[in-house]
């Protein structure tokens, strides 16, 4: 029995001791889990669900007065949505939204507009300025659908200049990327995204998103952007210097204007907006600045006319304003692209009067 013997057949008699085979190429037995396992993990998930529910209830009960955000990389968008939500929560509705870039942000005062409109028609309108820095048509096309679907305004006024469609407009793509990468925007556009879903449905999460820059050194100023957001969305520009034409340079796209295909696509998306009355509004620019446009003010006007033709094909009116010379020289901001507060008051009042007339003459269903 001392010597072990390899059996020649498939089994060995019980008195034959078979030595263990050397552990070469034996099947792995690395994983040796015994059931049950993972109870702690399961319990942790249950606690997490419970904790989240508690936070949600607390947020809905106690945090109504605190800011919320959708979690965009573009803080402007976060603040605008928050302020507009607040307005709708307070007034119950929003009738008109002025939408566009900074020329709209500084150029249209919804309060002045509503006041003049009431004087003209006796009707109270609740309006909001949704002007966002550096916005162009490519981003406007995306946001317009969301604004209409979420807020159901009776009138959407998109204020444009030639920059909205110009190739080479600074920051156009960055804004577009920031906006379209926002999970909440993706979710609104029909793409499922967990963060987007949370931002849309969870109050607790939306509150956290407003405070999410708590780790940033600029936290205080970012938070004040929410708490100090103007209820009407309008940000007045208080000019401290008169226009100095020696200091003002025309933007690069004035020298060689070309339509950016991405912006044109966004423009068409904007024109296809359904469910509300859309009006395109040419935001005024000083005649001295237009003279610097390649081909002069006439060429600028011709470009705007071409946009108007495209809009007309979709039954969208485009109201041109530059030729009206509404704004005196002293009512522009120092950069000559934006209106100062005095200019914005004049322009807002004119817009209200023009709208009232258009409604009265049946040119606009509003």
């Amino acid at each position, binding site marked *: 029995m001392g010597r072990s013997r390899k059996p020649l057949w498939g089994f060995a008699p019980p008195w034959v001791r078979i030595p263990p085979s050397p*552990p*070469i*190429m*034996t*099947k*792995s*037995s*690395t*994983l*040796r*889990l*015994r059931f049950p*396992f993972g*109870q*702690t*993990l399961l*319990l*942790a*998930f*249950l*606690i*997490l669900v419970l*904790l*989240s529910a508690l936070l949600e209830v607390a947020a809905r009960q106690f945090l109504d007065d605190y800011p919320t955000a959708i*979690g965009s990389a573009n803080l402007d968008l976060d603040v605008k949505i928050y302020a507009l939500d607040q307005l709708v929560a307070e007034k119950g509705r929003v009738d008109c939204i002025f939408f566009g870039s900074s020329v709209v942000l500084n150029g249209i005062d919804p309060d002045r507009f509503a006041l003049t409109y009431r004087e003209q028609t006796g009707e109270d309108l609740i309006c909001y300025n949704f002007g966002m820095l550096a916005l162009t048509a490519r981003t406007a096309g995306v946001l317009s659908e969301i604004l209409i679907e979420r807020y159901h305004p009776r009138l959407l006024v998109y204020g444009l200049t030639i920059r909205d469609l110009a190739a080479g407009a600074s920051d156009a793509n960055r804004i577009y990327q920031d906006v379209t990468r926002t999970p909440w925007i993706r979710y609104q556009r029909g793409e499922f995204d967990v*963060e987007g879903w949370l931002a849309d449905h969870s109050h607790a999460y939306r509150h*956290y*998103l407003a405070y*999410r*820059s*708590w*780790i*940033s*050194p600029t*936290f205080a100023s970012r938070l004040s952007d929410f708490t100090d957001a103007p209820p009407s969305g309008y940000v007045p520009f208080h000019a401290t210097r008169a226009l100095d034409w020696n200091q003002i340079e025309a933007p690069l796209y004035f020298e060689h204007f070309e339509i950016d295909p991405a912006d044109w696509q966004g423009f068409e998306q904007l024109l296809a907006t359904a469910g509300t009355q859309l009006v395109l509004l040419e935001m005024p620019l000083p005649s001295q600045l237009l003279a610097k446009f390649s081909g002069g003010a006439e060429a600028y006007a011709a470009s705007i006319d071409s946009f108007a033709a495209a809009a007309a094909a979709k039954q969208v009116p485009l109201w041109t304003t530059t030729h009206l010379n509404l704004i005196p020289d002293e009512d522009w901001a120092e950069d000559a692209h934006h209106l100062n507060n005095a200019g914005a008051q004049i322009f807002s009042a004119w817009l209200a009067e023009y709208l009232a007339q258009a409604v009265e003459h049946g040119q606009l269903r509003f």
Partner: protein
Amino acid sequence: MNIVTLSFAAFVLVVLALYYLLPRRPQNILLLGASYIFYATWSIEFPFILFAVTLVSFVLAQRLQPTETNATERRRWLWLGIGFNLFVLVLFKYAGFFVDDITARLSSWGLTHTEGLEILLPIGLSFYILQAISYLIDVSRKQLPASTDMIDFALYMAYFPKLTSGPIERARAFLPKLNAQRIVDNDQLARSFTLIVVGVVRKLVIADSLAAMIPAAYYNAPGTLSVVNLLTYALAYAFWLYNDFAGYTSVVRGVSGLFGIELSPNFQQPYFARNFTEFWNRWHITLSQWLRDYIYFPLSRALIRRNPSRWNVWNILLPPLVTMLLSGLWHGTGWHMVVWGGLHGLYLVGERLFGLWRPAVAPQKQPRWRQVFAIGVVFTLVVIAWVPFSLTLPHATEFARRLTLDRTLHRPSVRVLVVIFISLWIDWVQYRRGGNEIVFLRWPRLVQATLLALALLAIFLVTQATISPPFIYQGF
């Protein structure tokens, strides 16, 4: 592929799924392939450099076998191997200095197309070069036989959990693990999972938050900040650096545990050290041990051979200073790193001098108040040394000048202090149990689960708050 990303988690899961199906030898082959794929995700060139270093070290180690050559020849082969590895390190890590200089000179001569001169620093190079050197020295010292298995040796060099930032493993400890039985049972799974969760919390919740809280002015214009802010951000930097690297190490040790391969610990609550020797036994432990075994001890032994007196001044001064200066240069080029290394060298020299006229008492045997006082002193001096580590020398000087000039007082940032408190709490819990990193597993299940739920919530919320900076130590 950053290790605290979902893509890395998916990568590990795929490799694990295959790994558990295979016998041991093919497991090693799988791990080697996965490691090279992982490395290629950083840059396609990196695996070639790693392979070259691996191949040369493997071949040269064969020449270091006592049976192969005589002692003189072996020494020659050893220095050739060390020289080759140092050449690769200098070429890729420190060439930036020379390239910048050459580029400036060429452009002054009107040659502006110098893009080809740029050299990319392969991630993890500093770590695997040290492994290769230690392997060659250990073979020459007959502390281990030269590996005859290229697969195992290549895996020792490339094993992906430790590839980018260590731990710096020794071949004599690591290679036997590749041939040992590996078991991943319930306990191992719980250990690994705990290490991963603690590591991710350290990295994402603590380190990344602190990194984001330090304003750019701290690095670029410290003279514009108040003393309170400077001190707060210096503290924040100290805890950021620690949690960033300790978090990384914890995650990779946890991941490696899932493969049944244990990696060496690298941190043991270093900010609770009561002297500098203890600090270096708790901070980046595998690097400290490498420097001790291959620089400090050999140098000290050589000096003692010349003069065995305990009052041998050279032996008191040179080993700590040379070791720490080299440690500074290993971390990066620039005079500020030399100052950082020099400061730590001086701290160690001071400690040795102190020990000459006052008999050393083990820290744990000292009264509690002295231990706490010593922790405070060591921590303060370590934070002071982090200033030149984190800032260029002119900015570090500006920092120091500001401390003496500014007299304004205000409340420090509460946010920074809260995050530091979390770090200290984790350390304290582990420290109380003798540095046990997985002490949490001893707690009742409900407490464990609650902590885990809070950790998961915190990780989710912090990832919503910031963009993740890369691990600091990948840059070294």
